Every structure is written in C-alpha cells, then in structure tokens.
C-alpha cells in the first residue's frame, strides 16, 4: 500500500472530505501509527520488527532501537554500548521501529508486508487524529482493541 492510498483511507475514516488533514499532518499521524504498531509487534517478539547487526565497543544504539531479543553481555549507558566479554564486536538481534515516512514521497510503500497491519496503522492514525480533535473516540478505541486482539491471536 502506497502512502497516498493510506492518506486517502485515513481521510475516509475521518470523514475528511475537505482535506482538512493535509499530507504533512496525515503522514505524521500515520508515522505515529507505524511506531505504535512496531512497538506492539515487538511486544509479541515478532520477527517482522527484528534485525541483526554487529555492534562495536562504544557504539551508539540506533535511534529506532527498542530492545534486544533476549539478553546479551552488554552494558548500556544512555545510548552507548559496552561489551562485557572484552570482545571488540558483538552481533546483536534487536527490535526496532521502522523509519518514518516522508510526506513528500507519496508513492512510498507503507512498511508492513501485509495490508492487515497497514490497515491497523491507518486506524491507529485516525484514532490519534480524532483524539486531537476532541471527538468521542470510545467506539474507535473498542474497534482498535478488537483489532489488536485479533492481531495477537493471529501473530502469537
């Protein structure tokens, strides 16, 4: 799914026929939805949001780092890594959030490989936008909760 399609669906969910939410704001909400969905998937230890990288002594953690996949012999101070075994480098598997989408690149694909997750991202984005507009989002909250539950069962 391309970003422009996602923005279009986002507006449909908000009944935003007058494009009150421009590309910049819609993309910002969608990025928040992506970050939340990544965090949720990391909570399930989903391999979709996991990668492996070699880190060196004194390296900084990537800005989109969430947590390591299991325990590693490293000590973290702020964003700096110290390897406790005395080795110069260590391969670490970790969970991360996807990079943010650029509102100027509307043909960019949303990051998730299947559209059920992208749909969840858009619904989350819409919920956040409605909340900002002080609308009653209790029903949206319920629907999102059901979606989240369905996702948990499907993805384990």
């Amino acid at each position: 799914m391309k970003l422009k399609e996602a923005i279009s669906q986002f507006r449909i969910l908000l009944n935003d026929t007058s494009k009150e939410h421009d590309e910049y704001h819609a993309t910002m909400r969608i990025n928040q939805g992506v970050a939340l969905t990544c965090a949720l998937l990391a909570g399930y230890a989903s391999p979709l949001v996991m990668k492996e990288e070699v880190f060196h002594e004194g390296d900084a953690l990537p800005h989109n780092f969430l947590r390591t996949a299991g325990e590693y012999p490293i000590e973290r101070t702020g964003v700096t890594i110290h390897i406790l075994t005395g080795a110069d480098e260590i391969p670490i598997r970790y969970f991360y959030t996807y990079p943010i989408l650029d509102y100027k690149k509307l043909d960019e694909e949303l990051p998730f490989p299947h559209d059920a997750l992208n749909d969840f991202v858009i619904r989350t984005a819409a919920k956040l936008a409605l909340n900002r507009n002080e609308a009653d989002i209790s029903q949206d909250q319920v629907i999102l909760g059901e979606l989240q539950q369905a996702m948990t069962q499907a993805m384990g």
Partner: protein
Amino acid sequence: MTVKELIQRARFSLKDNNRALYSDWQMLVALNEVLDEVYIELSTFSNNVLIKTETVCLLAGQGELPDDCLRVVNVYQGDRVFEPVTKNEIPREREYYSEGNSLYCSAPWVTVDYKPIAPEYTVDDMEEELDTPPYLNTLLKKSLVNVVQGKDLLSLGDELRKVLAGRHLSQVGIRGEIWSNRI
C-alpha cells in the same frame, strides 16, 4: 549432538525458533550451568559416564592431576590397581592419595581415571560436539529449558539416576561371590 543442535531443540520447546526471546549467549550461559550441574551430579555416584583417562607422571612422589579433574575414580599401572589412603598416611607401594590438584604415590607414573569438570562453551563453540552421551540429550534439553525460564534443577540428580539406572557396572552378591555384570 552439537551444542547448536541441543540449543535448537530447546528453542523448539520454548517456541523460539526465531531467536526472538532468548539470545544464543543466554542459551549458552544456561547450557554451561546445566552441564556444570550434570557433571558434578555424575561425580557423586557410581557410574561409568564421562570418565576420562590420563597418564600422570610423578616426581619425588608427587604429580599434577589434569586441570579438568573433578574427582579421581581410579589409579593404576596396567592391571595393578592402587588403593586410596588418607592424606595422613605416607602412601606405600600401590597406594595413593590426592590433595587439591596433586596426586601422591611412590610410582614414577600412573594411569588415572577421573570425572572431569564440565567444559565451558562460548558462542564460538556452537559446532562443537557435546561430550555427554546421546541418552542424556533429552534430559539436557529439558534442564536447559528450565534454566532459561528461571526454574531450578532440584530433581536433576533423580532424573540422572533414572536415565543411568542399569547402565553402569553393577555388583550383585550371589552365594557369597561377587558377580560383575556390565549391562
């Protein structure tokens, strides 16, 4: 079975084939802990599992036991078996005692059967073959799963004895004679 294969079996039980819940490092720390317990437990009762044999040379009645020696099982020269004595006695011919990592006896060299300490595996040893016999694989896997999940290994000794029952040299007295039978 290699270290990697055993860890993979444990991951299957832990539903962690993706290596998302437990790191290899974490599994190795747990495996080393399990092996440590198994080797120590095996040294506490009579069995012929994991016995290593080395020749020890002695100078002025004293020799160094191998670095990985946990407990001396047998000291001999060919078919001449040496008897253990307490360290308060001076060992006579065909007698020995051990203290710390030293062996004391009057012979210039002896063959020593001993129970070793567990090897310590690191991430570079994933392809290494385990020294433990295949019939302990399931027990090792179960124990590894328990340790990774933070459970203790209180029943490990009982489980080991169950697996090894009947496998080691048993001595059964019949009509005043001792019959040895290796099953």
